[in-house]
């Protein structure tokens, strides 16, 4: 349907204000076909508002968004027919069975006849829900509910799938399986826009956008974003983590000290020299560092640093 490099989402200078409050300010996002695009940001940053505008549910007060080839403000119905949408609440009818839920969404998206039967078969098979077809949705565990929600959201084989915190409250194994499924979908050509608070999930996206206070802070591949944050990470194993933190926090260039049991994770600006300085600082204060190792900066480090820096400003 789309050439491989075609933009499935092309939002330019998108804004939304509610009265005097600006929920989304000048957001521009481009998502290509088959991409898994992550949208990160603290609660209330404007992620949901941005997503709703891209879904054609909420009219932008400024800017323009072309989604699956249609202007969301002018042809929201066209957009709605071509997207799938899965929310944190899973939007399932607890008092309907698995099969009834799927059939309901099939009808809602206008599937008929042979296409309908085939699509229901396909999602039942892919989600492995077939043996549970007669079970009430209420009786499913979190992981299975999530599978059912994804099956319902993809029943009409949408070229674009929006996932709004799709793994909230789901166990790690189910999360992992869910992401496998997302990658399969993307490999088959479905474009995916996903919001999440889990940073390990963010790293599984092809590209990311950080949204904070209604604006896009940074966007790009996870590795590039981490690199741009310019952080060096060290992990020190110390006996008195509290005291070490107190000593290091005031050191220039130190971005963050985080506890992981007996391990102190130190994020600094300025590279390896600063890390060596920090280690010397602890030694001078008489604190034994039993083990020190370099570590890889993660999206989470970049994200936390970015939000903190912005809050200080």
């Amino acid at each position: 349907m789309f050439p491989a490099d075609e933009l499935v989402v092309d939002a330019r200078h998108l804004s939304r204000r509610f009265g005097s409050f600006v929920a989304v300010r000048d957001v521009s996002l481009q998502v290509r076909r088959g991409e898994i695009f992550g949208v990160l940001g603290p609660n209330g940053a404007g992620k949901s508002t941005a997503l709703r505008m891209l879904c054609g549910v909420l009219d932008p007060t400024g800017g323009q968004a072309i989604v699956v080839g249609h202007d969301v403000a002018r042809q929201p119905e066209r957009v709605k027919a071509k997207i799938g949408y899965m929310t944190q609440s899973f939007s399932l009818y607890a008092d309907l069975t698995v099969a009834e839920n799927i059939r309901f969404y099939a009808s809602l998206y206008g599937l008929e006849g042979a296409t309908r039967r085939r699509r229901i078969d396909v999602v039942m098979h892919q989600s492995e829900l077939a043996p549970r077809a007669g079970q009430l949705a209420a009786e499913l565990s979190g992981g299975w509910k999530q599978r059912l929600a994804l099956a319902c959201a993809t029943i009409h084989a949408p070229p674009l799938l929006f996932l709004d915190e799709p793994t909230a409250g789901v166990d790690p194994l189910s999360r992992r399986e869910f992401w496998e499924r997302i990658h399969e979908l993307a490999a088959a050509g479905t474009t995916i826009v996903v919001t999440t608070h889990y940073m390990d999930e963010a790293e599984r996206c092809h590209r990311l956008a950080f949204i904070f206070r209604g604006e896009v802070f940074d966007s790009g591949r996870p590795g590039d974003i981490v690199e741009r944050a310019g952080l060096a990470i060290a992990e020190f194993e110390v006996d008195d983590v509290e005291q070490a933190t107190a000593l290091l926090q005031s050191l220039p260039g130190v971005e963050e000290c985080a506890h992981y049991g007996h391990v102190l994770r130190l994020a600094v600006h300025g590279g390896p020299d600063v890390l060596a300085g920090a280690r010397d600082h602890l030694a001078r204060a008489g604190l034994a560092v039993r083990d020190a190792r370099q570590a890889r900066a993660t999206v989470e480090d970049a994200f936390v640093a970015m939000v903190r820096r912005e809050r200080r400003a």
Partner: protein
Amino acid sequence: MRRLLAISLKELRQLRRDRLTLAMMISMPVSELLLLGYAINTDIRHIETVVLDRDRSAASRRLIVQMRATGYYDVVGAVENYHDIARALRSGRATVGVVVPAAFASDLERRRPTRVQLIVDGSDPQIVGTAIDTATGLAAARSAELAAPGVTRSRTRPAPAPLSFEPIIMYNPDQRTAVYIVPGLIGVLLTMTMVMLTAMALTRERERGTLEALIVSPASRLEIVVGKIAPYIAIGYLQMTLILLAGWWFFDVPTAGSLPLLYTVAALFIAAHLALGLLFSTVAQTQQQAMQMSFFFLLPNILITGFVFPFESMPLPVQHLAQALPLTHFLRVARRILLKGAHLEDMNYEVAWLAGIVAVFIASAAFRFKKKLL
């Protein structure tokens, strides 16, 4: 004790944040007291009366003036024949028709017993009693007055009273309460279930997050709303049919008029309450609040629409207030069709009111919906 206090305090705090419940808890006692205080007034006055005066004499006019002076009969018009009386009673324009016989003045003159017909709409047994008792009292007083000068009564057999009323009860001759209550019950039950079911059906979708999925789907808002409430229209008609059948089977409630007409007017009535349910669903955040609002709405419907307490006995301001409730009009429509065999032209006023209320409710629900669906 500390723990108990902490729990109570937490409960009060939560209550304070639930504005809707709080507002209802505070306004409920006062509003119910006022409604009940005004509604329970068994002293029925101002019974609408039409007069068929076949004598057109000073004596007949005097009788009518005296009836009016009791405060119980409001003469709303003079009519030409029995057909007009039947029509006035059927359309609710009057509850009582008085027929003064042609020889009224001369009969009185010659001390011949004369009988004035009192044709009473019997659909509300509470009104019938007052209408007949008042007339009987008036006749006794007039008779005594007529008999007093110069006429000696026989000691063994009292002379027949010179003036008496002959009551004729139409539409519910046996004065059975069930006949009066059942048509009203259709309205009350529909009011309760239609408002509550609609309000809860939508708040449930919002509460569970499924409304969002519907909104994101290609289904239009109209499809969502109409699709959601259509089953409840069917349920409403089913309820109505069940009550009619049960009323007919157990209490022998008549169906004098056209059922298709009743079902047609019921569509307006149901529509009004579905729209109101939608309106409630845009205000209520939870199913619990939706339920509370529905109950709050139900109480005045039971008290001031004429379901149990006669509409005529309520003070005018309360009657005006009751006009805004669809049930007030539907009760009359249902009673008139079922008990009196009324036609559409006998209910123009009520149907117009219902249509107006439907329009206002739907417009406000649509307006609120546009803003509040998400």
